[in-house]
């Protein structure tokens, strides 16, 4: 792999696909606002975060073009999110198990 190739990706999504994604994002926003008004106890947070993650995935894969990038980029993105998950998750080994609140 040398840097003399200037391959540009001329086959990015067209206007139409982006507008569809946008509409989906708005729809999901409605869903999440509505779901927040239903009392599901602690599941509320889980549902909200799940919907947010779907939205985030749409932005990442389509608006940010990750779907069309090569595997190296996808692995790097995965690595970054995995590390963040570890930072948050491992902290809970402490805070979720303290003897007193």
């Amino acid at each position: 792999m040398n840097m003399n190739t200037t391959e540009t990706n001329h086959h990015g999504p067209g206007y139409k696909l982006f507008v569809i994604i946008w509409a989906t994002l708005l729809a999901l926003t409605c869903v999440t606002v509505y779901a927040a008004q239903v009392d599901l106890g602690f599941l509320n947070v889980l549902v909200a975060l799940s919907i947010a993650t779907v939205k985030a995935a749409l932005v990442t894969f389509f608006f940010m073009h990750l779907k069309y990038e090569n595997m190296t980029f996808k692995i790097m993105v995965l690595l970054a999110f995995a590390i963040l998950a570890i930072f948050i998750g491992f902290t809970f080994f402490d805070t979720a198990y303290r003897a007193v609140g």
Partner: protein
Amino acid sequence: MADAAVDKGFFAPKGGSLLKEWLFTTDHKRIGMLYLWCILAFFVVGVCLGLAIRLELFAPGMTIMTQKAYNAVFTLHGVVMIFLVVIPSIPAAFGNIFLPLQLGAEDVAFPRLNMFSWWLYIIGGVIALTSLFTGGGPPDTGWTFYVPFSAISTTNVSVAVIGVFVLGFSSILTGLNFIVTIHRMRAEGLGWLRLTLFAWALYATAWIQVLATPILSITVVLIAIERLLGMGIFDPARGGDPILYQHLFWIYSHPAVYIMILPAMGVISDIIPVFCRKPIFGYKTILVSSLAIAFAGSLVWAHHMFVSGMSDTAVMVFSFLTFIVAVPSAVKVFNWLSTMYKGSIRPEPPLIYALGFIFLFAMGGITGLVLGSAGTDMHVHDTYFVVGHFHFVIFGGTGMGLFASMHYWFPKIYGRMYNKRIATIAALIIIVGINGLYIPMYLLGLAGMPRRYYDYLPQYTDLHQLSTYGSWITAVGLGLMFWNLWRGRKHGRLVGKNPWGAATLEWTLPSPPPTHNFDEEPVVTHGPYHYDGIEPDEDRIEDKGDEVNNG
């Protein structure tokens, strides 16, 4: 006179203002040299602070400074050594100069960003040092800036942490630059499995720089806004938790120690094969170990917090994980030694420093196990045992790795050779000094002497004095080493392209290398540690320098 015969390579003036063509250079080799000189200057500052600490601790009670001054001195010693010296040292200096050369590239991926990184380093350093002279004076919190003290200390913590923020940015951008450089700028034929282990080490390090340093950035921002706006984020009365500060701080600062050690290990992996004239034993294993250390090192941060009040579950989990991260490090030590077995060993100075690294790092690493094991850590946490441990691995490890780099690549950079006998003697003095300086600390710690204490009970005096004597021996060794290198710059015997007989790409270039690096992009046909058909250069006949010939 001798200079007239030496092509100055990338040092040659280009006809413009000297200041401008160095301070605003985008040539990775010049940037690396700028980093090297600044890092060594800050190292001298850090050493002086360390010597001052040892002088103060020579006797109980006040010896040469007040308590408040002492707190400031050890804080500054930590901040300078960690952020201005050790973290940038090998990557920003030798990585910048030699990574593109080892890849057969013209420069790094983003040369202007590289220059910007250096400027951030300088600005961050200036800001951090400004805290000495402004506001309430230099911070007295220790380099770890723990809350609640850092939030309320009347000293100039805010300015210092802003300096740290800027320095963090410098580190991040260097890491970013190196990742793209390694992915995108390898010469033809240079597949991933033909990279030098130095390059692999820089790659692993760069990922830590990119993914861990931002946590430091947000952590110091939180200290600054706590001091300026009183937001109470770590205040239990307002729902905060000071232990969370420690989590955030160590989520960066533990991986930071791998930023410190991985490049040094990479240098050792490059040096040992050359001076044993044998390919490295277990290339792939060392490569995987570098990546494993980078990854596993991100999982263990709370072993700095065993006594902080965090949950027992966390104590056990992090202690267990800490044992795992020791494994790849040990693997590397075994591989280096196996490389030497039945090798054709030439005890040149780079190898001497490399062997010093292995010896001192292994000693320090083993004491790391005592600290990683939660049960034993309870007794030695925040004692001098810790101080002994980390100085063995950072000074005996990365420090020796830095000195090994200097002695290995000096002839390539300056086109001259230093006096090898003096270099070796200096190495031995430093090794003796480090042992004398830090072994007493293990004993002090086990006997209960706390760290960061200004005063101590009389029973600790003998060991403290031994340690102080060790600091003087170390200083003598360092002085000798630097003086020898300094002299070699202008008066050393001239050398050719490959005085050591190494097989990596930087040794195919003239010494010093020209500004444009390679006349034609090289085509790589073999791995980095294959010595068939490669011999060390003969001495250049024209100029033997003055009497500074090697012994």
